């Protein structure tokens, strides 16, 4: 059935309100939309690495998770959900469990690109039937905006401050979606909550109902770390996509598909200037920083088009 936001929104809410995520945070929007892609009759075991989403959605004795949920530690949501999935297989074989259960591991970029990379890689390589979702806000936001390997170059964070000598983070972002694509798992996609959130919904649905390990990387802006006005969340998501800072694409059994090619690719400066963390890049004399970022974005976009056979 073709995607329809009104229909999707009518599905029973599986991630309830009352959680303590900040206004204007991208993560809960992403989580709600992904959970909407579940068949209503399927049970879910969701896991979450330590981070904003976990501490804000399951603060004892309250939980936002209508399904079953487990938090273990920072770096091990991949292996925790893998273990739950293994138990499911064993109990199902024994006839002790009826019906379908799906498995989703949620991690922020810190818990995914950095400290949880090993557990994620292991779980994907072993072929567990599970979806791993990274909500990428580009820094350790829960501990107070420290740089991660997902932090964009020049971003001002509390451990890569824009100082007198060093202008924010010195390194470019790790390309985790590519790292996961090179695990040769059945489905990998990069997506964002834009427009009527069709891209996110359809990719979540595909990832959930493709047998085997699947991975979604979803951009999830953070108003505190990125320094934007909370109502601007959806505009920032859109700018990330329109500038090709965050291309929407999927890798289906090794085949690359670019899902959206902007007719007029916007300069990355439009994405950067909307955020306070890049403010120093717009001071006179720092134009080379913006040029540098534009060059990197272009290089990665061209490489992606080539992989998809479109360049």
């Amino acid at each position, binding site marked *: 059935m073709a995607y329809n936001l009104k229909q999707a929104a009518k599905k029973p809410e599986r991630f309830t309100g009352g959680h303590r995520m900040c206004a204007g945070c991208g993560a809960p929007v992403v989580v709600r939309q992904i959970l909407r892609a579940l068949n209503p009759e399927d*049970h879910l*075991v969701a*896991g979450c690495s330590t981070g904003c989403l*976990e*501490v804000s959605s*399951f*603060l*004892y*004795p309250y*939980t936002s*998770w*209508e*399904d*079953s*949920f*487990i*938090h*273990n*530690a920072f*770096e*091990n949501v*991949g*292996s*925790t*959900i*893998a*273990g*739950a*999935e*293994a*138990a*499911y*297989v*064993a*109990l199902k*074989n*024994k006839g*002790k*469990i009826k*019906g379908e*259960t799906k498995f989703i591991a949620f991690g922020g970029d810190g818990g995914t690109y950095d400290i949880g990379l*090993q*557990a994620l*890689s*292991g*779980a994907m*390589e*072993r072929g567990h039937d599970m979806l791993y979702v990274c909500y990428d806000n580009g820094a350790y936001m829960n501990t107070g905006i420290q740089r991660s390997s997902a932090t964009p170059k020049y971003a001002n964070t509390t451990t890569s401050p824009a100082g007198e000598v060093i202008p924010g983070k010195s390194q470019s972002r790790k390309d985790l979606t590519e790292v996961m694509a090179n695990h040769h798992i059945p489905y990998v996609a990069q997506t964002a909550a834009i427009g009527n959130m069709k891209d996110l919904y359809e990719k979540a649905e595909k990832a959930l109902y493709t047998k085997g390990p699947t991975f979604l990387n979803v951009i999830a802006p953070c108003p505190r770390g990125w320094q934007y006005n909370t109502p601007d969340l959806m505009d920032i998501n859109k700018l990330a996509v329109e500038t090709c800072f965050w291309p929407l694409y999927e890798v289906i059994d090794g085949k690359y598909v670019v899902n959206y090619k902007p007719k007029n690719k916007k300069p990355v400066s439009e994405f950067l200037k909307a955020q306070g963390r890049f403010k120093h890049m717009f001071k006179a004399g720092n134009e080379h920083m913006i040029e540098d970022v534009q060059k990197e974005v272009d290089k990665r976009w061209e490489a992606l088009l080539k992989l998809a056979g479109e360049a």
Partner: protein
Amino acid sequence: MAIRERLSGNEAVAIAMKQINPDVVAAFPITPSTEIPQYFSNYVADGVVDAEFVAVESEHSAMSACVGAQAAGGRAMTATSANGLGLMWEVLYIAACSRLPIVMGVVNRTMSGPLNIHNDHSDSMGARDSGWIQFYCENNQEAYDNMLMANRIGEHPDVMLPVMVCQDGFITSHAIENIELVEDDKIKDFVGEYNPEMYLLNSEKPISMGPLDLQGHTFEHKRQQAQGMINAKKVVNEVSEEFYKLTGRKYELFEEYMTEDAEAVAVILNSTAGTAKYVVNQLRAQGKKVGLIKPRLYRPFPVDEMVEVLSKFKAVAVLDKADSFNAAGGPLYTDVTSALYSKGVFSPKVINYIYGIGGRDVKADDIEIVYNKILDIAATGKVDSVYNYLGVRE
């Protein structure tokens, strides 16, 4: 009819795991425990068990996957040694606090550094306060038997805690000894089905586990966890009694050897207790009143029972195969002496020996040095040194 076999300690543990037939085994290779997942993966490959074997990429993930599997509603087991246990560290605490009765075979090995694959108890001793029940085993038979009892104890509703069954790396893990195995069907009945009250895979009754807990609730949750450990002693006795009826093999909280009229007694864990029994026999033949206490249950520590027995002796040497680096004494010594003090018992003179670090061979002659020392203390009442090292060049 029990089955007579000749097995290594690792194989004995693996066979116990086969008979328990858990739902998930998640493990990572580390010497000297590697054989346990090796044997077990063969059982999986040959289809003789129902378990899923998860060949994880680290011990951290081994324990994390066990937490996920047990929380999901399955029985999860693993095995490790030394640095592998070290890498599991934070998840050990989470497993215990989440009240997940995971069972783990620990094949004791020196914690790095320096790197050394041989036996001492520095690995599991470091985990003594992680909230896991700990059993220590003298030989293959005990490792097998304690594994068979571990699920029943950990899963008891009054306990709900994970269990470690510790044995000495190489000394018992790789040495082949005679062993008596219990028939598969009897074990199946003894261990029983695992039907947890709350679990992730119950779609009728979803549950959230592992909350952010904060100041308002963590203390109460930790207090409940502590109660599980307090309750464990009684459950250990009940399950051991049932096991005795099944097999004829009797297990107490600790074993007393030649203690009835003893004046000088050593307290020793695991395989060295076997060496000490030989020395006790020899000294007894010379008319010397020596004996041995071999703790089996170390966590929870059986304070009341231990103190009642120790209070009868004049001199006690506690042997630790792990140093605490506290400039005061090893972990077992600290537990024994604080148990005595807390019960107001000051009568036996108690000294400590750190021995066998890094797998240093412990011979009968070494143990005899210890007994001669405590016989001397028993006779004179004089202690010149409390914190001692045995068998080290210095």
